[in-house]
């Protein structure tokens, strides 16, 4: 299954080379990368700007702190452990509950306290971090998905990836984990990507392994009827990540919590390109549309979202 480059260009597909040269290196200032590459920094920055993020329960920075972890986690039912510099969802451990001495992982499997401690130690050693550099572990509140999403996803909470260009949300997709993806939200591992209409948050198109699907392979629920709640609020949250990072081309990962509504999970300065496959359309025409806007014109996040909903909806 090959495609001619002319056909791809006609559909406005953004390629890796063009993304790197024309967008990432042109619009993203290198010095601001640590802000997004380090989830702890992103979180603190987001809190500073009053952006909703999952509640931080604690940070494990040193090896000796791991032994105290048992006590501090005693009063937590569910929590997520993340490497601060992890990429692509690597090294995330989600504990949904307890069963006596054991913890229950999101997949339903049990893990004892030693398993959790080893995981923390690996994170500190930098096993999951981008360049293998030493890292810290973040412990944060579990997200309680809204009912609709809970039914859709095989395990884990679905997240919403929005490409934000110069502060304007240009394309969005919902990522649903599947049995094949082992509860992960990475499309290349078999998660379902649902392209969302920027104007309404409704499903446009859905793919798994680049093939079009209409039903979730595990839960068999129809994907066509999906409409993300609090859509505009969600887009505004994504758009505001431009203010906190000043990075021109980013991917914002968001979740919708049952109680707290839309929250910012993490940011990515090098967002992947498969969002185009999930949407069935290329990014380039939208990016060009935004590039036409005069850089001196600085609208508020709400105005940017309204513009995007109007233009790309």
């Amino acid at each position: 299954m090959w495609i001619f480059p002319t056909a791809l260009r006609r559909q406005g597909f953004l390629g890796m080379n063009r993304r790197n040269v024309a967008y990432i290196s042109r619009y993203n200032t290198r010095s601001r990368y640590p802000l997004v590459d380090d989830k702890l920094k992103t979180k603190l920055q987001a809190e500073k700007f009053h952006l909703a993020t999952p509640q931080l329960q604690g940070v494990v920075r040193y090896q000796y702190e791991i032994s105290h972890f048992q006590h501090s986690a005693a009063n937590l039912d569910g929590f997520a452990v993340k490497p601060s510099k992890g990429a692509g969802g690597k090294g995330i451990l989600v504990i949904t509950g307890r069963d006596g001495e054991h913890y229950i992982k999101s997949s339903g499997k049990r893990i004892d306290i030693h398993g959790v401690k080893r995981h923390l130690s690996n994170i500190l050693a930098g096993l999951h971090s981008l360049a293998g550099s030493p890292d810290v572990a973040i412990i944060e509140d579990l997200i309680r998905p809204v009912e609709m999403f809970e039914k859709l996803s095989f395990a884990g909470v679905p997240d919403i990836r929005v490409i934000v260009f110069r502060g304007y949300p240009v394309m969005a997709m919902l990522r649903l984990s599947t049995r094949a993806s082992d509860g992960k939200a990475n499309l290349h591992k078999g998660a379902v990507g649902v392209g969302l209409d920027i104007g309404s948050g409704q499903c446009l198109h859905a793919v798994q392994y680049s093939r079009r699907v209409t039903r979730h392979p595990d839960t068999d629920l129809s994907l066509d009827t999906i409409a993300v709640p609090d859509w505009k609020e969600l887009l505004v949250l994504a758009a505001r990540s431009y203010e906190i990072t000043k990075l021109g081309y980013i991917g914002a990962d968001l979740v919708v919590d049952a109680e707290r509504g839309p929250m910012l999970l993490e940011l990515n300065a090098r967002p992947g390109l498969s969002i185009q496959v999930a949407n069935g359309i290329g990014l380039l025409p939208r990016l060009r549309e935004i590039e036409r806007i005069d850089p001196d014109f600085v609208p508020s996040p709400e105005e940017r979202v309204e513009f995007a909903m109007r233009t790309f909806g």
Partner: protein
Amino acid sequence: MNSRFGFYLIIFILVLAGISLSWLRHTKLNVPLQPGQQKAVWLIEARVDFEALGKAVRVSLNLPDNPPGYRQVSGQAASTGYGFAEIEGPEGRRAEWTKRSAQGSQTLYYKAQMVADPQAEHEKEQRPQTAPEPKEIFWDSLQATAAHQLVEQAYAKSSTPTSLARELAKQLTASEPDQNASLLLSQYSLPTLIMRLLNHAGIPARISMGLELRDARRYQSLQPILEVYESEHWIPVDPRTGAHGLPQNMLLWQRAGKSLLDVTGGESSEVSFSMLRQTMPALDLARLQQDTDGISRFSLYSLPIEEQSVFKLLLLLPLGAMIVTFMRIIVGIRTSGTFMPVLIALSFLQTQLFQGLSAFLLIVALGLVLRGYLSKLNLLMVARISTLIVLVIFLTSIISVIGHELGFSLGLTITFFPMIIIAWTIERMSILWEEEGSREVLIQGLGSLSVAIVSYLCMRMDIVRHLTFNFPELHLVLLAAILTMGQYTGYKLSELKRFGVMRGRS
């Protein structure tokens, strides 16, 4: 837009500089463009014999000075007890032997290596500053009348100095020469006669001495060659046929009527020549001429041999870098580590492809097994990699020893692998294995190896090794190619497959 223009200007300049410098080196220094080229070289030995009179001796021999069609590669004198120097004087190049006192028969040798080079004629010819005057010729009265008539007949049938020479040659070599011709031919040799007749007609002409180059000849002497001055050039004319241009294999040894051999302090001197045709690698030939020319300074041959061999390898790296750039930007092959494939390819160069590949796979596989155990120990990362390096060195030594015992020459080959790189490869691969599964390890591993093999195959080619080392300026062209690829914003080949599902949509 402006910066774009500047960028392409730089690219253009790089390509132009690279190619023109190489071209200069090729044409001026005769560095061959292909490896293993053979060139014919004439080894000519001039032998001077004379009887010394017991006094101070000075022998001066005319040497060929930029002869048309030939280039001198080397020259040396062999004569015991004599002082020797090559002198560049107003008279041209001369070999001079000197000795305070000598007695009896003496023999001096001068050896020159000449290589045929058709371009030398155009480039190195020394043009006379002012047009030479025809020599004044004296005849006795009978000869003068005959000469006058001969010249008049030929003059009417000719238009230029060379055509006049041709007409004269025709008349003088006719099967039944007329009375005037016979008369003059009885007193002068044919070339001399034509030279005299031409000068008589007011046209500068001279006799030069040439050596006919024929393989393995000895005791040859120089032959007179007629030269006619026409339109600022001295043009050789064959007195027998009137054809102009030098006969093939004719080396002009002495021009412009200078004396061939001067001997003071000796008598009955004579000079004879022997010659031999050799073939020699064109590269060695170019190297022999090194110190003569300015551009040769760029050459790496001026370095000590040891450093040369290092540079031979080092100068292959840019090519590997370009291949990696191409494979990653244009093709989109995923490799583990950006330039690891080039380093693997370099180590394959030291070994053989098969041995290198099997050794590499063996060590990485064993390393992955050991790394699997290490991951259970919960070590800190730096300690883990350090452990891995030590283990990899153990592994290579063990494999080398076993290989040696079994009679494979594997041992020597593996030691060239950079240990740290292997250790890192194992580390990255095992993390990849844990996180992304064996499939991704296979993809990246095969990607790295295939890029390494492609680079190896390119770097192994004789022509590539030859060009990178002898024409280092070609790296500017490589650089331009890499810079251009850095500007490529089109789709990768792999993306055409990745986005292949979009086929058939508008």
